[in-house]
Every structure is written in C-alpha cells, then in structure tokens.
C-alpha cells in the first residue's frame, strides 16, 4: 500500500509504459495513455465511490457500484504489480456491467430540439471544475427521454461494458438518478425559512 501511494508513474509499479493491456473480446488499451489518468486518482475515487454509494443507497438509486478497487486499498504492502482491470470502478446500469473510465453527474439546464444542455460535475477528479455538455436526446434510453427536463439529474459514464456473452466494448451511457422523495427535503426547509422572514 505504501508503494502504491508513493508511485507516480507506470514504471514505478513495475510494468512497461509502451505495452498495451488486452481485455476479453480483443479490446486493447495503451497503458501509457490511461495509466496516469486512472492510477493517480484510483485511491481518491475509491473513497468517493464509497461516499457516493452511501448517498445512492439513501436516495434509492437503482444502480450500484462494485468497489473492485477496494482490492487496491487492502492489498499487501509489498505488492508492486497492479491488476489494471481492478483499478476501474465497476457500475451496473440496466443489467450491464461497465468499467468506468470517466463519470460525471449532470443536471439538465435547457432542452432544445433534439438535444439538451447540462452542467456536468466530474465524479472522478476531486477538483474537477463544472463542465458543460450538449447531449443528443437519442443518447438517452427511449424510456427515459420523456423525463428529460430542466433540473433532472443524470449520470454520464464512459467505460468498457462487459456484455452477458463476455464481449467488451467501449460505450457511453446515460442513466437518470432515481429518487426516493424524503419528508425533510431541502426545498421544504427553504419554504420554512421563507415563512420565518421578518
């Protein structure tokens, strides 16, 4: 664990930066391209995902995160070889397992003809700025398209999907945050505060 936290590049943890990683289904990724992006944030991501999981559970979200990267957090102190696939966070959306390369939480800001714009908040990088996205409606599942409206919260993921047959492929996925309304919502609290105005 100590070595892992101190490592700053691919060579620090014992593999060549010029090689590629091969996954089931023939997909290969250049290690040097992805390593820094994935590795340097792996520990932070794990902690964030645990917090995220707590929030999702409390609000009734219908997706779940398998914290495979927990294996990194608890691995042997002397371990120098990282199982790269385990560095991904795995999210299950609509029955598909996705190894996440990048994930944002988004809020729909405006809807236009055939697309919508949204504010995105990076869930993978702790100091990520707000970003802006323009997303075609066709990228949203048909059953969810009618729900896209200003204010709706969704997740945008890019990653490698493991299909039931075992094949993998890089995909972009959008799923809406499910919400279990609670009695003590912020909006009700705001209404109470307005009542207290002098």
């Amino acid at each position, binding site marked *: 664990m100590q070595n892992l936290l101190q490592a700053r590049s691919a060579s620090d943890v014992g593999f060549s930066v010029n090689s590629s990683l091969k996954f089931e289904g023939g997909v290969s990724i250049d290690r040097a391209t992805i390593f820094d992006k994935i590795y340097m944030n792996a520990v932070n991501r794990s902690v964030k995902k645990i917090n995220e999981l707590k929030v999702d559970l409390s609000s009734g979200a219908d997706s779940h995160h398998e914290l495979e990267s927990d294996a990194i957090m608890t691995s042997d102190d002397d371990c120098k070889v990282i199982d790269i696939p385990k560095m991904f966070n795995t999210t299950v959306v609509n029955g598909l397992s996705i190894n996440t390369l*990048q994930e944002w939480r988004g809020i729909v800001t*405006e809807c236009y003809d055939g697309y919508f714009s949204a504010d995105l908040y990076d869930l993978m990088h702790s100091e990520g700025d707000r970003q802006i996205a323009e997303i075609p409606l066709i990228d949203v599942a048909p059953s969810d398209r009618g729900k896209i409206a200003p204010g*709706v919260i969704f997740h945008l993921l890019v990653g490698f999907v493991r299909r039931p047959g075992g094949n993998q492929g890089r995909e972009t996925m959008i799923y809406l945050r499910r919400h279990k309304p609670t009695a003590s919502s912020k909006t009700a609290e705001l209404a109470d505060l*307005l009542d207290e105005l002098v």
Partner: protein
Amino acid sequence: MELNSPGEGEIEISVFSRGYGESICIHIGDSRWIIIDSLTEKDGTPAALKYLNSIGVTPDRVTAVLLTHWHDDHVRGAAQIVDACTDAVIAISSVLRHDEFKAFLRRTPSAAISRTTSGVDELMSIIKCLNQRGKSPHFCMANRKILEEFNDAALSFEALSPCDNDFLQMLERIAAVVVPDGVAMRLPAPSRNDISVVTTIQVSGRMFLFGADLEVSKEGYGWHALHGDAWRKRGRADFYKVAHHGSVTGEFPPIWEEFLRPDVMTVLTPWSRGTKLPKATDVQRIAGQTRNCFAASKVRQPKSSFAAAAVQRSLKDADIQVYREPNETGHIRFRSHGEDQWKVDFVSGDSCSLAEVFG
C-alpha cells in the same frame, strides 16, 4: 490594465460576463455602489466583489443588491454578496413571499446532493442570512422603488417589472410544474423570464435602464406592460443593458423609440450555450439602433474539455460535446462625468464592441 476607483461624482457601470451569467456593478457617486445579479469567477468568488475589492471598495459601500430573477446565470455567488454587503438593501423576486410558491417548494422534493443544488443552496443561504440580521428583503414589483433619496443627487432605483399579470401567470406556471415521477431533480426554474426585474437608476438627473432578461409577451404582459404602465413619462435613458442577451425575444421597438436617447450606450452579455445569443441578426438589429453597442464577452465556441483520449473518442462517437467554462471573466467598464461623455474600457477577458462579438 490598471484598476482604479471612479471619482466621487463619476458614474461607473461595470458589466461582467463569462458567456454564461452576468453581473453589473454601478457606482452611483459618493463611493456608493449597487450590484445587479451575480456570477462567479473560476475560483468561486463573485466577480462583483472581486472587482470592488481590487479597486479598494469595501462591501459596506454597497447600497443595494438586486437579483433580477432566479436563473443560475444570474445568481451564482449571490449568497456571498448578500453575506458580505451587510448594509445593503437586498432586492429579490416577490414570488418568494407567496404561499403558492412555498406550497410549490413543499411539494417538490429536491435531491439532496452536494454541488448540484446551487439554486436552492444559494437561496437558503440568503434567506438564513437575512433572518439572522432580522432584515426583510425588498420584494420587487413594477413601479416599486428599491431605493429613493431626496438629496442633491436625487437617487432613485426603481423596479419596472414584473407587473401583476406577469406575476399571476408565473404562479399559474408554478402550479402546473410536473416533476417526473421517481426522477431526481433540483428545484426546477421557470423556463421563461416573465418575472425578471427590469430597473432604472436615476441619479443626478440622468437615467440608466437595465433590461434584465425580460421578454416580449403580449399586451398587458412583459415589455408591453412596462411600456403602457410603468414607463409613463420618465424621459430617456442614456445607458441600456440590453434585455435577454440581445435575443429577439427581448426586442420591443418602443424601447429604442421612447425609452432611450439616440445612440444610447448599450451593452449585452452573450449566452454561449445551446442556441447561443446574440445571433448575427440580433447584432445587425441592435447596431442599426445605436452606434455605441458593446458586449461584455464574446459568443464563445465550445472547446473540448480535458479527458483521456479513449473518453474523447467515446463522446465523439455519441455526438456529445463536453467543454469547460472559460477561465477569464469578460469585464467592460463605462465611466461618465456627464451626458454623452462616456469612456469605455475593455478591462479584462474578451469584452469587445458588438461588431466583434463572434470572434
């Protein structure tokens, strides 16, 4: 550019924009300021406070803070401004005091997620702050003065909208908002700008018009109501912050014909998202009305955001554009000692003349 504070009797109107959001600081003389709306810098500081601090003005010199309407591009950082400006009159939408709005809040559960509920959080912080101070906000309605002083400078800061019709229509719209079942969302904002607060500042016999985001609607509503009711015989303004980012939906010909002096000094704040404003036809239309037209920033084209190559390729395959907000805030400054004596400074960012707004 070296920043300095305006002279005692000098009028200053500083307009800030980042292609999304606007904020205006107005020096009304005697080292006193009014702030209209708020946008934040990249570091989260309200642009208005940062600027005032940079020219040595302390927040206690801010006399009034107006939030024209509750859209994100006009209120980001507003709670920080309200917190800092302890002596200021805080003017907000009168919709907030109505039972219909409170009922709407109580029946609209908003997801309790950090960093994504800024609208609610911003409003809560402001209301908490005012409650602690034991101060009520000023609720804006047409023909209601926010500030009025009968001294040598004869200051008047007055709301010209929303009118009663706009207000009732807004309450009806609130009642009709349907939250998609089972989907998490933040507090939905009204899609139109019917209750946006248009204001005038009259000081030392001069008048400046701030169009907020008010749009043209129909007889008895929006700009029509302002023309028929609120404006009356006020005279003509010699500065105009163009309504609704220069969009044709904010264009009401009597504004130019009856409310403004010929070749009035004008500025707009572009909207660089989605359909983008102003459009080339809007620029042409406004330039046809006055030779003195400016923009606080350019209409910015999206620049691809940082992401790993594999992520970029996936986004491209899905036709999704992800980009960052620009780093620097556009700031344009107008200073004047007397009518027709304006000095325009492009202080920072990509503020420009309107002819250059597309790059």
